[in-house]
């Protein structure tokens, strides 16, 4: 048992650990040519300026492609580190280098494997089955196992790679020679008063302290949805067009990249469908005052049919034998309402966004989603026989044959949605 647990933990460490394990172990500061030439002749040391001092030995290298110089060092924890420059004459200089704490989707078993297994379980769940509770128990057990593994591996990975999330922002560079030139050690104030660097190009994604910020948006939209069914021999009625409503929480970590959690549901008619997808989008800024984003999403959806007509049919065959003229089989399919099915939807979308104010935008989007529809019938068969008992006296007898059976049909559909909505920025 211990060996199995160790195996799972090793796999988690290797393949589904948190991001720190996959990040580069080095970071670098861009230097201008005079600064690079000057620093190459000095003694350099980088430290974290903390009571528990951790130092790094930097080195200067020329980039082979863009002919610029970089000061590279092994990563060190902290939102700013100190570059200590000293020369042979005993002069020194301390320069603050800002560092950004990197953030990303936490790659772990709980955030990758567990949702995939959960979607798989739910998509294969049969609402007629009497064993759904055991499936749910198995799912809970897998969730607990994955969470426990993460609870062990994530702190371990962070402990081993605790410096990895910190990196020097690309927009920061040392270009002015006067900022790095050494000073006499008796100039205590100049030596030990280190000005924190300020980001001259503040963007919505990097603040004045060179720390990452994420604009968060809430997009609410409404529109109309048309459903096209793929070729199917299922007797189920087609899904009609209906109003659809959507909500989306978007996070934009960079200028061209956006991800979000999107939820859409239709106004219940004879069916009720909703999908929740995790989606990523590429944002184009080439249009003046507006943006265009194109993206894909995948997640979990549910479908419930609320009403459908019952069906009836007749047959002259009974266990592959042709019945006589006085007999016929009546087949009755009784619709079973409100059975909930789950499925993994895939969505693609194009969204046009026109900024109305600094925090509010108007959105128009066209979305295509692959959804599933289901229908269930309780089918009964009756044998109907006619008989002449005596002249003028007739009998018509109906008796049920066999057992009541459940017939389930599934169809694949494409949902086309046209939405108009408002997008509000939630954080300042």
């Amino acid at each position: 048992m211990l060996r199995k647990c160790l195996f799972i933990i090793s796999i988690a460490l290797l393949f589904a650990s948190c991001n720190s394990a996959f990040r580069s172990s080095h970071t670098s500061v861009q230097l201008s040519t005079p600064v690079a030439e000057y620093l190459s002749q000095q003694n350099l040391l980088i430290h974290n300026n903390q009571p528990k001092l951790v130092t790094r030995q930097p080195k200067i290298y020329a980039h082979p492609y863009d002919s610029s110089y970089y000061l590279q060092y092994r990563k060190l924890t902290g939102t700013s580190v100190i570059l200590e420059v000293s020369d042979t004459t005993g002069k020194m200089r301390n320069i603050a280098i800002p560092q950004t704490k990197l953030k990303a989707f936490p790659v772990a078993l709980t955030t990758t494997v567990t949702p995939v297994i959960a979607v798989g379980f739910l998509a294969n769940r049969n609402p007629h089955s009497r064993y759904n509770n055991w499936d749910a128990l198995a799912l809970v057990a897998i969730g607990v196992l994955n969470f426990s593994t993460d609870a062990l591996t994530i702190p371990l990975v962070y402990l081993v790679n605790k410096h990895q999330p910190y990196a020097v922002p690309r927009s920061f560079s040392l270009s002015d020679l006067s900022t790095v030139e050494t000073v006499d050690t008796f100039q205590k104030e100049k030596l030990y008063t280190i000005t924190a660097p300020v980001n001259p190009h503040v963007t919505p994604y990097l603040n004045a302290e060179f720390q990452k910020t994420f604009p968060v948006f809430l997009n609410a939209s409404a529109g109309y949805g048309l459903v096209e069914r793929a070729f199917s021999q299922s007797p189920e009625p087609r899904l009609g067009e209906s109003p659809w409503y959507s909500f989306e929480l978007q996070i934009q970590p960079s200028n061209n990249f956006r991800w979000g959690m999107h939820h859409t549901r239709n106004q219940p008619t004879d069916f009720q469908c909703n999908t929740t997808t995790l989606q990523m989008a590429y944002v184009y800024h080439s249009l003046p005052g507006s943006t265009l984003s194109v993206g894909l999403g995948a997640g979990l959806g549910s479908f419930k049919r609320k009403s459908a007509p019952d069906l009836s049919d007749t047959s002259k065959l009974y266990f592959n034998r042709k019945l006589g003229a006085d007999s016929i089989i009546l087949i009755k399919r009784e619709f079973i309402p409100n059975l909930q099915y789950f499925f993994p939807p895939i969505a693609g979308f194009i969204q046009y966004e026109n900024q109305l104010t600094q925090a509010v935008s108007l959105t128009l989007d066209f979305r295509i989603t692959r959804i599933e529809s289901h229908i269930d019938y309780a089918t009964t068969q009756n044998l109907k026989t006619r008989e002449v008992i005596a002249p003028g006296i007739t009998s018509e007898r109906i008796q049920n044959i066999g057992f009541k059976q459940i017939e389930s049909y599934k169809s694949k559909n494409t949902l086309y949605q046209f939405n108009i909505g408002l997008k509000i920025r939630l954080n300042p």
Partner: protein
Amino acid sequence: MKTPYKLGLIALLLLTISSCDWWFKEDYRFKILQILQNNQSNRVYNKTVVSYGGYNYNSVYVRDTQTFYRNIQSGDTAQILMENMYTVNLYALDTVQFDIELTDSQQFNTKFTRTYIRNPYQTLNDFVETIRF
């Protein structure tokens, strides 16, 4: 393993087990609905004797009869519904026989028998028979 974890797991297991169906309770049913429809121009007198047999709870084969007397107006119908003889009174009841006698005040007079046989390989046996005369 620590006691709170053990108790938590036991509670989860008990919760799951208690919510499960452990067996499937089948409903056995043998139900007969007979409808007599009078298409004669006169009122018809009907006597129907329903007879059936099976084993009681002392494992003794017994036979039971019920007799119905009705006057069916012209264009009207009469019904006999037999549905609880299987589950309440007898088991291993496979055959039910309806001996029907129809007479009116004039020349119409007939007797015939209708038999309903339960299929033991299916749990539900529902018969609906409409006799027109």
